[in-house]
């Protein structure tokens, strides 16, 4: 009786092990002949799974962009977005364990890409590379990205022919103290010498407009939590006004002149936490900050319930509608005297995200052709999303006018200035905004110049557009700012911009121990940062600060900091090198 019991147990165990392991591991890929040209058309319609770590939309790409891709490649894009799915890296981990991340993959270079190459999850595109004529223009960046890998595994993003010492951002920097200019004007443009001077001004602004048009209470500052990473994300932003950006737990100045630990007593990060604490004491911070996410906060800005924004792409994008700006209302930068805003130089060899083809892709050739198209002028105009300022397809939203200048069409004006437009049926129909590319990745930088027109792909820099969007708001701002044409021009002219040369630096992979320590420490930092911002008294603030420093240290903060410090310095070296070589 003993024997069969054992036999059955062993047999079923083996069966189970077999069953469970059979899902892991993949089939070898077929040998692919090198091609020098893509076919003109594809007969069979396919749907490709796009695993896109930047996408904020999940599902089949619809609208005019979907229509365009369908017409050109007879292909539908099924976007799989970890951002939408939530849960951190869960989706990524599940899919890579199953051995198939997607047909087309948008991920990050460095650790993730290396892992995918090593694990055999991405395809070597070398056989298709000779046919990729548009990507070829950026061959230096492609070679640099695939350096040390035996093949062409990934394609760089945000490539351009702009110098790495020039800002990559177009007419507005990524960061800056943006205020509701109309209220600031009513106060008589009070002078702002430094960050803390914003507090009384914001207080007065909030008193001027205590309720929004929708009846809700106005708070000068509204925070959100869902982007928190190594630190509380909204607390990092004001440090960028002084030229700092994060590298792990280090705040590194763009010109390499200063490196701070974020827990330094007199550092910029704790300064911001103090700033939020004081703002909260003055009743300026939205009490819902602790629980809301980005979307909720965005709609508050849209409704005029918030008066301060760290970014033009929040304040201006959400609130500066045609109706508001015509009435003189809207967000504009209000320079602090001592600020030196951090700007990202054009990445010489591409930005952090990369585009790759999955090793189990259906029809990899067609996907390669699609990737190549993303680097073409047509692809650049179409793919770069509206918030990045790309103009959309020629003939639909813009065209060359009589003098050969690019100008927005009627529909383009409706879409970009009015906020919404219906696309005609032959372009796929539907709303223009909803039909835009959901890939949310720029293959070519929108600030790069289109050789055809001689102007950037970004319509916001076109003279015809500048003429179109003259509003009482922009005129008032310009008059106050000494007739600067754009924010970027003002900052450059007043030496308030600090450009970090775009060295396309890839930080070294965290060794597993550092990574684990980092994850535990950052959880503590984020947790205490929020508590400190909402502390009840100065004494509590200081006590929490002490606790944070002690607990972080106990969990191995110093070890991680040392690692990040080295990485920050290496990044600066790379920046100096690229500035010397290409700047």
């Amino acid at each position, binding site marked *: 009786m003993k024997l069969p019991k054992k036999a059955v147990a062993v047999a079923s165990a083996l069966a189970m092990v077999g069953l469970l392991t059979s899902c892991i591991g993949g089939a070898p890929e077929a040998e692919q002949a090198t091609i020098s040209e893509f076919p003109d058309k594809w007969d069979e319609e396919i749907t490709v799974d796009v695993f896109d770590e930047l996408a904020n939309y999940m599902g089949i790409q619809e609208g005019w962009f979907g229509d365009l891709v369908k017409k050109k490649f007879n292909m539908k894009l099924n976007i799989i977005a970890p951002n939408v799915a939530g849960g951190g890296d869960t989706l990524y981990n599940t899919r890579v364990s199953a051995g198939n991340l997607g047909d087309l993959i948008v991920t990050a270079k460095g650790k993730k890409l290396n892992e995918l190459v090593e*694990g055999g999850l991405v395809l070597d595109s070398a056989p298709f590379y000779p046919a990729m004529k548009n990507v070829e223009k950026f061959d230096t960046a492609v070679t640099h990205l695939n350096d040390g890998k035996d093949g062409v595994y990934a394609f760089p993003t945000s490539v351009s022919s702009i110098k790495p010492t020039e800002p990559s951002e177009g007419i507005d920097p990524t960061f800056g103290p943006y205020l509701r200019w109309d209220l600031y004007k009513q106060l008589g443009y009070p002078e702002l010498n430094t960050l803390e001077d914003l507090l009384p001004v914001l207080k007065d602004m909030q008193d001027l407009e205590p309720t929004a048009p929708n009846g809700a209470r106005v708070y000068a500052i509204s925070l959100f939590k869902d982007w928190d990473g190594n630190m509380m994300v909204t607390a990092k932003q004001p440090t960028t006004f002084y030229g700092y950006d994060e590298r792990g737990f280090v705040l590194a100045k763009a010109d390499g002149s200063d490196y701070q630990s974020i827990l330094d007593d007199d550092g910029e990060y704790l300064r911001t936490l103090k700033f939020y604490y004081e703002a909260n004491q003055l009743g300026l911070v939205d009490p819902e900050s602790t629980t809301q996410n980005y979307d909720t906060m965005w709609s508050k800005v849209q409704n005029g319930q918030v008066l301060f924004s760290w970014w033009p792409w929040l304040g201006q994008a959400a609130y500066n509608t045609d109706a508001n700006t015509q009435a003189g209302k809207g967000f504009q930068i209000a320079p602090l005297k001592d600020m030196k805003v951090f700007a990202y130089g054009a990445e010489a060899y591409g930005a952090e995200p990369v585009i790759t083809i999955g090793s189990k892709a259906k029809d990899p050739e067609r996907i390669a052709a699609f990737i190549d198209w993303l680097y073409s002028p047509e692809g650049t105009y179409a793919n770069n999303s509206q918030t990045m300022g790309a103009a959309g397809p020629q003939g639909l939203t813009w065209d060359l006018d009589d003098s050969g200048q690019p100008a927005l069409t009627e529909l383009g004006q409706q879409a970009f200035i009015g906020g919404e437009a219906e696309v005609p049926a032959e372009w796929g129909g539907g709303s223009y905004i909803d039909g835009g590319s959901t890939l949310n990745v720029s293959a070519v930088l929108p600030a790069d110049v289109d050789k055809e027109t001689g102007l950037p792909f970004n319509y916001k820099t076109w003279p015809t557009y500048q003429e179109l969007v003259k509003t009482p708001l922009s005129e008032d701002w310009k008059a106050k700012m000494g007739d600067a044409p754009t924010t970027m021009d003002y900052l450059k002219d007043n030496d308030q911009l600090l450009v970090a040369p775009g060295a396309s630096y890839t930080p070294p992979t965290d060794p597993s121990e550092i990574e684990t320590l980092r994850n535990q420490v950052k959880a503590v930092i984020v947790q205490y940062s929020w508590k400190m911002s909402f502390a009840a008294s100065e004494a509590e603030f200081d006590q929490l600060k002490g606790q944070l420093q002690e607990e972080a240290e106990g969990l191995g903060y110093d070890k991680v900091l040392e690692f990040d410090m080295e990485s920050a310095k290496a990044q600066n070296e790379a920046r100096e090198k690229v500035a010397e070589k290409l700047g």
Partner: protein
Amino acid sequence: MREYPTSNGAAGDDMTSQLVLQEVAATELEESPAAEKASRKQRRQAGGRRSIGMFLCIVPFMVLVFVFSYFPLYGWIYSLFDYRPALGLSGSEFVGLQWFELLVSSPTQVAQIGQVLLNTLAISFLGIATSVLPLIFAIFLNEVRAPWFRNSVQTLTTLPNFISWVLVYMIAFSLFSSSGLVNNVLNDAGLITQPLKFLDTDQNVWLTMTLWGVWKGLGWGAIIYLAAIAGIDQSLYESAKIDGAGRFQLMRYITIPQLMPTYLVLLLLSVANLLNNGMEQYFVFQNAFNKETIQVLDLYVYNIGITGNSLSMATAIGMLKSVISVALLLTVNWIAKRVRGQSIV
């Protein structure tokens, strides 16, 4: 060994099991000394047949137990690697006991795990302390005379059990957030000027979590007691009434003693689940302000493994749970041996 009717064993067996049976019989035959009497052989053979039949009946359950309780232990191997899903286990680096060393490497780390265990046990014990509430509720509900009222109370209190924690949090959020109903009402009534922080505070987290649990589980927990009450012999009540017992005396001397066995069984089961207080509830309610006091073991493992993406480290911490559970079990067993002179495992 218990005797089973023969008809159950061999009847209806297919070819394969017949073969297995023959083989087994043969094996057993070999095992028996040659001098065995024929009749004894026959009896053993018959007994063997019956046992095999019964054994085959429990095989599916053994397989299930194996697959869901023992096979997952294989996953402990991940704690010895630096597991990277993209590379698979075979491609990941073997790191030995690195994660375990990391767990005890610094006093802060140990203190953090201590806090997590404290939270887990505190919330579990509060849960056990409140497990008497469904019992009381059932007894009082049973005394309600109007059936329509009793039924509607029962339905209304049972319903929350079927609401997911995510929705419970939505309810909690719309009621108690800083711009929620309660704060708005208090604000409009002029009682407060600053919104009260019900959700984003570390005050009384264990208690509020227990209360939410009670609200959700009260009606559901009472069902089993209501069923037990229905099973109490009515003659007990009748004779007590004849002896002149009042309503509360009936509850005290008949209902409660009769329910005690059920209650004790459930209590034992909940003690066994001491470390298993799940994570959904705490996951939806957690935020930067209450994290320290709300993080129970399961949630801690989730936060490290899934949110923090340290799967190997999370495995190491998860093993902690098994170790503590085994320790608890052995302790209870030891107490049982001392008290009753009989071990339970």
